[in-house]
């Protein structure tokens, strides 16, 4: 397994994994909609030009073409920005991918606020919600390059559709050396404690920093990287519900419909559950700015998590 123990954008890890799959699996083909340099499919395109299809700026056609490739027995990875993949081509994903359960992998990059300067029109904050409500669809959100790499390799063996949410900006390495991604299984950091912070994607690193600070303040805190949002790791949720006084979910996504919602939907079925806080983008669009400025402005920093935990426990 190729391990890069340094910060890396998850889209770069996707590009690396595609190159590996190109050699590993002759049935893997890749599609893009004129963003191959940004989505990092360009490396695969250069090495395996006959297995790469650029449909131009046509996201509906991108998804439909990927469906047809599955019908011929091939394994397509379709890529564009998350905003276009899940928004522009939603009906194609619903009716041509999810409904007939075709094994298309939608690897969407540039998700979330951390797209940065491109602004609100390009900052997908609803893609997790849109994808997870579809029957047959799996939703995976890697926390770092290593996890993204493993997910992409794993997705190649899936017999149904998978949505993988990837980011533009470089993120810290958080994955332990012995970690192996498994769908439906969260990655847990530390023993269970008073507080469980459940995060995904970019926010896992922030959650780990917040946990460190809270531990110094005397609290016992566990961090959960819920990278498989669908299927969700309900065992970890049940454990958190029985051991913690407080669960806080954190995501670079609208609070409505995302990771937090998925967790709360499950927690609501339990007989007893702790207090739950949900951090994410409230009911407003993004805007232009540096990714760091945006995470500050929208309250998605370790400091915001710390404050939310303290506020909840004090109240």
């Amino acid at each position, binding site marked *: 397994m190729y391990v890069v123990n340094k910060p890396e954008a998850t889209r770069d890890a996707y590009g690396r994994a595609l190159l590996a799959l190109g050699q590993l699996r002759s049935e893997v*083909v890749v599609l893009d909609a004129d963003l191959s340099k940004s989505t990092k499919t360009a490396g695969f395109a250069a090495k395996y030009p*006959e*297995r790469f*299809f650029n*449909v*131009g700026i*046509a996201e*509906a*056609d991108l*998804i*439909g*073409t*990927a*469906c*047809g*490739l*599955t*019908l*011929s*027995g*091939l394994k*397509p990875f379709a890529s564009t920005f998350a905003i276009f993949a899940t928004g522009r081509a939603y*009906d*194609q994903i*619903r*009716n*041509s991918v999810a*409904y*007939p*359960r075709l094994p298309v992998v939608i690897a969407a990059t540039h998700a979330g606020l951390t797209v940065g300067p491109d602004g609100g029109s390009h900052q997908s904050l609803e893609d997790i919600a849109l994808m997870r409500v579809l029957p047959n669809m799996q939703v995976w959100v890697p926390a770092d390059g290593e996890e993204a790499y493993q997910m992409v390799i794993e997705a190649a063996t899936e017999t149904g559709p998978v949505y993988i949410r990837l980011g533009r900006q470089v993120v810290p390495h958080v994955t332990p050396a012995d970690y192996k991604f498994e769908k439906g299984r969260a990655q847990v950091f530390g023993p269970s404690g008073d507080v469980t912070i459940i995060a995904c994607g970019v926010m896992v690193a922030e959650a780990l920093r917040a946990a460190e600070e809270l531990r110094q303040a005397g609290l016992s805190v566990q961090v959960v990287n819920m990278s498989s949002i669908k299927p969700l790791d309900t065992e970890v949720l049940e454990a958190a519900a029985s051991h913690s006084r407080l669960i806080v979910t954190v995501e670079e996504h609208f609070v409505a419909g995302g990771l937090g919602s998925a967790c709360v939907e499950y927690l609501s079925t339990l007989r007893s559950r702790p207090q739950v806080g949900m951090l994410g983008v409230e009911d407003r669009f993004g805007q232009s700015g540096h990714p760091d400025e945006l995470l500050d402005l929208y309250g998605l920093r370790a400091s915001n998590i710390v404050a939310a935990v303290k506020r909840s426990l004090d109240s």
Partner: protein
Amino acid sequence: MNTVLLRNKAQEMRRLIMEGIAEAGSGHPGGSLSLVEIMSYLYFYQAQLHETDPLWPERDRIILSKGHAAPALYAALAAKGYMPHEEMLTLRKLGSRLQGHPDMRKLPGVEMSTGSLGQGLSVANGLALGLRLQNKANKVYVVLGDGELQEGQVWEAAMTAAHHRLTNLMAVVDYNGLQIDGFTGEVKRLEPLAEKWQAFGWQTVTVDGHSFADLYRGFNVERDDRPLVVIAKTIKGKGVQYMENVADWHGKAPSKAQAQEYIEGIGGDVRG
């Protein structure tokens, strides 16, 4: 080409369509009936299909992009012997393999789940690209509606097929000139239609979609390196006199009495 066989199969399919939709009490007779000769021609002459196995790996693929004409597809599969004729009476009912719009996971022989218009050509392109990449000789046929051509994705896909010179792909447009709200020329005109396809890089041929000889001419025209679209002029509701060219019969079921009257009119049981 055995035109007697094709004509008999077409009549068998019309009967099944009328019976199925009447029993269901809902469905789309107009655009199913306009397709009957096209489906008969594809399933009983043009496409390489197995006599008994709808999933034969070497088969040509037929994708019905205008999924609301599902009764025409089911009737073709029944006429082919891929499903029992009686099953047509389960159309649109709870638990049926014959969903209101085709579901590939329920019924073998349905190559792609369709129904949301405009998506089939992209899928056919992907299939044609994939087959070609694997050096397979199978052909891909995709049946488009005319109203469906108002969907933008069709033209995205038209560009893709032309760009990749998909000569293993053939599209056919069921040009019956009607959509739910009226004549296509009044709702949003398609003309000049052949010129549109040509401008998008396609070879075109216009035929009478109810003439087997003309369909043969269309699908077997001398090919160049462009994908081919057969523009088949048809009559919506063809074969059922009061339905012909009436937009109202796009999505309205005949009564069981009307279906019975039709079947008696064509000489009773044509299943044999």
